[in-house]
């Protein structure tokens, strides 16, 4: 097996690794700054023509139902709100590579995107319900939580069956099987990738700890939101790969978020409604 390949080598040597457009990352950083304004976000967007067009399309979409056509980017940012613009920028920036099949995880076309977008919607919902994290940050963290799978997939082609057999024989979770077999799991690879991309620390932390939220030393409540969001999305079958639900659910997350176990059902119900509402809209704009 390819355990001799280090995480750094995976991140450095995988030639077709995806990237997030610079403008999308700048918008993400700007919106998290206390000095953010619609004008500065619009100035960043203007540097990326494709992204600008998508923001204008969203502002003029039936979803917002405005009576007049918006042609000015600054006005579009005001109408949509900076956080919606950031979410759209990230979805649009990641869709081109997230919609590809990840054969190393037995994910068909669009399956990775469905899981990432679904986890984003669910994490945002958990953050809103618990008020333990900023909603838009939870959306971003959910969207980007499985970066490691994207990087690892090409190295794992045709090997997943063996890792699954090992996990089944030992009675362990899939991420634990990855660690024992490869020496690292997709969470660690995702953390390295996120760090390499210079993504915000909280996004890096969610990559690293989303299957082990109790181990998080910083941003733990945000990690909890993503952990629960990931569970809700996966249990509904959105973008399930060969690893399926072969992960541990840490109930300490529910305790920290003050969610009663019986409330998960209501959250999941709301998630299904929201996912149905948003998926086609975002996908159409992102494609």
């Amino acid at each position, binding site marked *: 097996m390819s355990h001799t390949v280090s995480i750094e080598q995976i991140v450095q040597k995988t030639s077709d690794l995806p990237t997030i457009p610079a403008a999308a990352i700048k918008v993400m950083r700007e919106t998290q700054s206390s000095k953010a304004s619609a004008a500065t976000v619009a100035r960043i967007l203007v540097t990326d023509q494709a992204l600008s067009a998508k923001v204008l399309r969203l502002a003029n979409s039936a979803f917002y139902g405005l009576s007049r056509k918006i042609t000015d980017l600054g006005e579009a940012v005001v109408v949509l709100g900076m956080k919606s613009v950031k979410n759209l920028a990230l979805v649009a920036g990641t869709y081109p590579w997230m919609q590809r099949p990840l054969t190393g995880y037995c994910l068909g076309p669009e399956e990775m995107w469905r899981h990432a977008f679904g986890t984003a919607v669910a994490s945002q919902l958990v953050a809103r319900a618990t008020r333990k994290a900023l909603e838009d940050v939870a959306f971003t963290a959910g969207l980007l939580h499985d970066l490691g799978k994207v990087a690892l997939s090409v190295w794992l082609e045709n090997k997943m069956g063996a890792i699954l057999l090992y996990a089944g024989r030992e009675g362990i979770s899939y991420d634990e099987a990855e660690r024992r077999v490869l020496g690292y799991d997709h969470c660690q690879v995702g953390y390295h990738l996120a760090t390499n991309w210079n993504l915000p620390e909280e996004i890096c932390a969610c990559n690293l700890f989303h299957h082990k939220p109790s181990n998080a030393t910083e941003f733990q409540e945000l990690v909890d939101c993503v952990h629960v969001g990931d569970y809700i999305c996966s249990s509904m079958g959105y973008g399930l790969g060969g690893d399926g639900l072969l992960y541990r659910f840490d109930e300490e997350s529910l305790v920290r978020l003050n969610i009663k176990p*019986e409330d998960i059902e209501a959250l999941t119900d709301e998630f299904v409604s929201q996912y149905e509402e948003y998926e086609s809209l975002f996908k159409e704009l992102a494609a």
Partner: protein
Amino acid sequence: MERQFLTDYLHWCHEIFRVWTKSRPSEFSGEKRFNTLESNERGLLDMSNPSQILVGAATIRVSNGQTTMICPGIGSSIGLVAMDEVAGVTGTVHMMLPKVLNKSSLDKPGRYVSTGIAELVRQMQEQGALASRLVIAYVGGAEVFTFGAERNQQFNIGTRNVAAVSDQLHSLELRTLAADLGGNNGRTLIVESASGEVRVRTTNGGERTLCILKRTQLEAA
């Protein structure tokens, strides 16, 4: 040292897996898995083929023709098929949650076990089926590993969905022929109405015939 052992062990597993799958080409095969994954989108779900019916999340589909019903993306949710062989009516529902929690969701009966099965039966009856003749098969209810402070299974949607289906089938006095439940895998339910064959494919690559819903086909076999 330990890493070397694991590498050898994995290589050994991989070899066994390879030889085993080679001898069973129609089942659990790594290469087959990727092909079938692609075919999930491109071949299996060929939407230009009018005889194929996609049963998406929270939907109910009923047909009195010769069709292949495909219900993908079943995690903790439940894919359930019912067939009336005499009337030639087949119906499938993909239910996500045990019961309706919000009145605003009453217009989505297929989403819930508490409303989905009864609505499926009603729609099948409209096409000439009789509840007393229906034969049922269902799959899903996958679960995650759990650990933590309370070890409370109440949040586990898969377990709760399976219990709800069992209750509903009992109260509606419907006959169940087969079920494939629990575990950690996602599933796809495939129903051939002509033969009554029900197949279940797991996201880790296996595919098997769960049952034959048509008695005549079963007797012929």
